């Protein structure tokens, strides 16, 4: 699949009663982009809109050259995979079952997994060291293991774009680094990755570019130029 990244064309995000942020930027493929900004500025709304769970107020959003407004839920899921905050619980869900849901955009109404689907699931579980605990109940996993499962799920969806909503909140030091390192490796394979985070030190270490959301307007710059941005310094960059 040709990946043309994510194009925000004068895209206005938010709610009719409360517009949040406007973006007019391009996220190129093969880059790990950090979305930073204060709580409430609209990071989660941007993620939800990219996943089709919320509509744009105006403007347009293109993913791999396709207007998101024209895609069905299923088609969009073939282009964007996501990791959200919070933990799933109940129903005896196992890592293997969670990862298998990544293939739903490609399966028929009976959700029959093809040999290719099975292969993708097995490969991803192997790659991320999940095979050993793939049948354990989800709630028995540590936060780090849990997040690795959800990352593996997003990778198994084989989409050109990957969005993550604060995936490192609640994680210990090593697990935070692990998440960013995994994402960097995925970006190197050609995916466009947008990760919302408050971990500015990890952004500086792993990410290529920064999308900074601010009520007065958004900024987009390379990580190497982060220290030149007043808004980035005010957000906490001055402590780095």
């Amino acid at each position: 699949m040709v990946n043309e990244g994510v194009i925000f064309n004068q895209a206005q995000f938010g709610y009719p009663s409360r517009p949040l942020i406007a973006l007019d930027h391009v996220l190129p493929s093969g880059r790990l982009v950090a979305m930073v900004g204060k709580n409430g500025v609209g990071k989660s709304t941007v993620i939800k809109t990219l996943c089709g769970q919320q509509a744009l107020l105006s403007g347009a959003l293109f993913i791999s050259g396709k207007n998101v407004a024209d895609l069905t839920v299923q088609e969009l899921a073939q282009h964007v995979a996501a990791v959200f905050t919070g933990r799933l619980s109940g129903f005896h869900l196992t890592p293997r079952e969670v990862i298998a849901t990544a293939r739903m955009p490609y399966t028929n109404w009976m959700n029959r997994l093809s040999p290719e689907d099975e292969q993708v699931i097995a490969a991803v579980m192997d790659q991320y060291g999940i095979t050993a605990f793939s049948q354990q109940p989800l709630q028995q996993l540590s936060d780090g293991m849990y997040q690795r499962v959800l990352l593996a799920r997003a990778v198994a969806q084989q989409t050109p774009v990957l969005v993550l909503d604060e995936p490192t909140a609640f994680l210990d030091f090593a697990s935070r680094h692990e998440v960013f390192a995994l994402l960097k490796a995925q970006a190197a394979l050609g995916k466009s990755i947008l990760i919302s985070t408050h971990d500015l030190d990890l952004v500086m270490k792993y990410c290529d570019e920064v999308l900074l959301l601010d009520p007065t307007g958004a900024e987009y710059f390379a990580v190497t130029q982060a220290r030149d941005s007043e808004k980035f310094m005010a957000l906490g960059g001055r402590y780095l």
Partner: protein
Amino acid sequence: MARHHYYILFIAFIVLLLAVYFNLIWGGTEPLDYHHFSSNDFIFYQIRLPKMLTALIAGGALAVAGQLMQIVFKNPLAGPYVLGISSGASLAVGVLLLSVNRVFPVSIAVAAISGAVLVTFLVLAIAARIQSNVVLLIIGLMLAQIFASAETSLAYFADPSSLKRFVLWGMGSLGNASMRDLAFYFPLLVIALALTTFLFKPMNALLMGEAYANASGISFKWSRFKLILLSSLLTGLATALCGPISFVGLAVPVISRQVLPTAKQQWQWPMNLFLGSTVLLVSDILCHQAYSVAPLPLNMVTSLIGAPLVIWLMFKNKQW
């Protein structure tokens, strides 16, 4: 891993067959002589058989209805009784029983189904405007309260003879339906149950919640609509057959997950079906055997044996 799931399901099926058999023999004040069923022709064909079939289909339908609701709300407290759907059915039957002197079984059925369907559409109209499931659940619980108090006011002003009829109906009974009623309801319930088997994919997606369901290419709102609609249909039909049975829809899905600990809803579905039917068949045996003078009300027994079972399973496994 699938192999021992097959065994558990197989055992549940055998238990169900045993329950069917013993329900036919012991499901009355006198045990039937199973060597000479023919000598008891009338009792067998006019009373025991329709009662057994009612328990079989209504128990399975209520359990599957509960399974769907607990998935939609990601909450083991959900059942056909939340969202006010069965209260709507009850209220409609109450209006009928308390206002009309002569009542036919079919009119009760029509009232129960239309009550359930009306409330379902009300709830779905509300759901279309509401994103949060918890909010929807609270609104449903409040609707149930409104219908319950409307029912109480109806009962307060009713004359004693129709009041007794309504109170008895509210206690649930498997003996209401004749073979002719069943010829109408049984196929409808089988069709509704068959339709739910087309929804295993959205059911499995919804276990992960709204955000991940959508991200997996399964529209949450559309799936929720289909699941709630089918659940209400099953509830309305079952309520029409045997009155409001409070316990099965709530507890059987919980028991089913404890006995067969898998998230795969294509496995939970037959388990709910078998367990739901078994619970009603066994409850009916107990209704008739526990007290020799007259059969006990069904709702008294289902909760009395079922609730401690759920508590014990929860203590043992500490997860839902």
